[in-house]
């Protein structure tokens, strides 16, 4: 496909790898966090890590919406699904994540709940139009990419006076999570992983623009390069980060210029601001409670807020003790450090959220990286 295949060319990738190897100083370390799960997936799918010299290490960030949703929020959706009048719908991966007692929305469906998979928020709206006798709840998750479509659906429901549609809103904010990783002493101390620079997300940045990251370059002196999702984009962005670090620069640079601008998609931002407002605090799996890191539906649109309509309250629930998703999401542990990885926990029978979503680090390791270490040592 045009604008995709050119950015996957293996020969060019090897040449860029040569440039990275030549420019990365042998006695430096380059710990680069790719925030977004889309990048984690690309790095493993295309074997980018194997093209990097040992001093360049990619640390996987928390940018996987399915992964960071805490069990307590999923339990809210499970309790809604158990009500006979409710049709609960969400994106596919969300249905497979285990909640309290290992119960997922798919299991709830097996027990008779009306749970449906949708491709977009518009599909959920259409379900509400077709089933006026039922309460249709859209279990909305995601970063700044899925938030604008949810806003469109709520505005549409408002203009149609749709009485039986509501949203259980779990939309979260990328810059708040980046700031948390840089600020939190826990995240810094536990694994003592110093992060030297960030690979910024592709699609999220189309919406929020590069200016949203300027405070990290200025305030924290960490270089940020916004990167496209294809393997050559990722490699070029890594090279750009290495050059910034070598030259002592900390700037926001944009590798994904074909889609990302400084200001982003202002129309989408305005619409989100009309429908949503910041939530004072929100719990993230792995990061804990992060202030101002999520959105809630404004009072004016409160009738479409499932938390108000069904009088739901959030109760935090601990993760499965053996599951290391939390530490993996902070970049402190790697999936292979978890004793459940690949044994009790696989994509077919996931124990933790990082194994469910294809953007999760565990799923990426399992699909593409499981046999990497042995192969490497055999060729060494």
């Amino acid at each position: 496909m045009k604008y995709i295949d050119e950015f996957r060319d293996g020969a060019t990738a090897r040449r860029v790898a040569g440039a990275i190897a030549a420019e990365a100083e042998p006695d430096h370390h380059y710990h680069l966090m790719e925030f977004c799960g889309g990048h984690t997936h690309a790095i493993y799918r295309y074997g980018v890590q194997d093209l990097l010299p040992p001093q360049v290490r990619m640390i996987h960030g928390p940018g996987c919406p399915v992964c960071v949703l805490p069990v307590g929020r999923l339990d809210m959706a499970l309790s809604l699904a158990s009500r006979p009048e409710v049709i609960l719908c969400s994106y596919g991966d969300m249905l497979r994540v285990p909640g309290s007692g290992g119960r997922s929305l798919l299991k709830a469906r097996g027990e008779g709940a009306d749970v449906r998979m949708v491709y977009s928020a518009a599909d959920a709206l259409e379900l509400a139009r077709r089933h006026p006798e039922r309460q249709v709840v859209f279990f909305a998750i995601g970063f700044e990419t899925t938030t604008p479509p949810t806003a469109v659906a709520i505005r549409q429901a408002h203009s149609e006076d749709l009485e039986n549609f509501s949203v259980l809103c779990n939309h979260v904010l990328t810059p708040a999570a980046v700031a948390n990783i840089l600020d939190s002493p826990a995240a810094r101390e536990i694994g003592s992983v110093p992060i030297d620079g960030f690979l910024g997300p592709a699609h999220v940045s189309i919406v929020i623009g590069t200016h949203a990251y300027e405070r990290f370059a200025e305030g924290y002196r960490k270089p940020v390069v916004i990167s496209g999702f294809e393997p050559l984009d990722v490699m070029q962005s890594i090279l750009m980060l290495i050059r910034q670090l070598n030259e002592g620069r900390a700037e926001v640079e944009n590798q994904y210029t074909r889609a990302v601008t400084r200001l982003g998609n202002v129309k989408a931002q305005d619409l989100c601001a009309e429908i949503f407002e910041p939530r004072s605090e929100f719990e993230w799996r792995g990061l804990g409670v992060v202030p101002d890191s999520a959105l809630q539906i404004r009072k004016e649109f409160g009738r479409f807020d499932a938390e108000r309509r069904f009088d739901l309250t959030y109760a935090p629930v601990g993760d499965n003790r053996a599951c290391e998703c939390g530490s993996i999401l902070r970049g402190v542990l790697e999936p292979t450090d978890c004793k459940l990885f690949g044994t009790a926990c696989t994509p077919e029978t996931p124990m933790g959220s990082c194994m469910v979503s294809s953007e999760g680090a565990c799923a990426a390791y399992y699909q593409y990286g499981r046999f990497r270490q042995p192969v490497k040592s055999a060729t060494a």
Partner: protein
Amino acid sequence: MLDDQQALIDLDGVQKEISLELLDDVAVGDYVVVHVGYALGRLDPEEAERTLALLGEAGLEAAR
């Protein structure tokens, strides 16, 4: 282009109906970045060419 700010896109041979509600002034033939059924942004062909050219240069520098 379809009614109600909808459009038909070609995804490597697969036809899919998507929404243009988050993006103004899209014309037939444009490339857009689609996420959960909505066009989030436009793809700029000139910038894509420029990035590819830069990628080519990175390779040359290493070869020198």
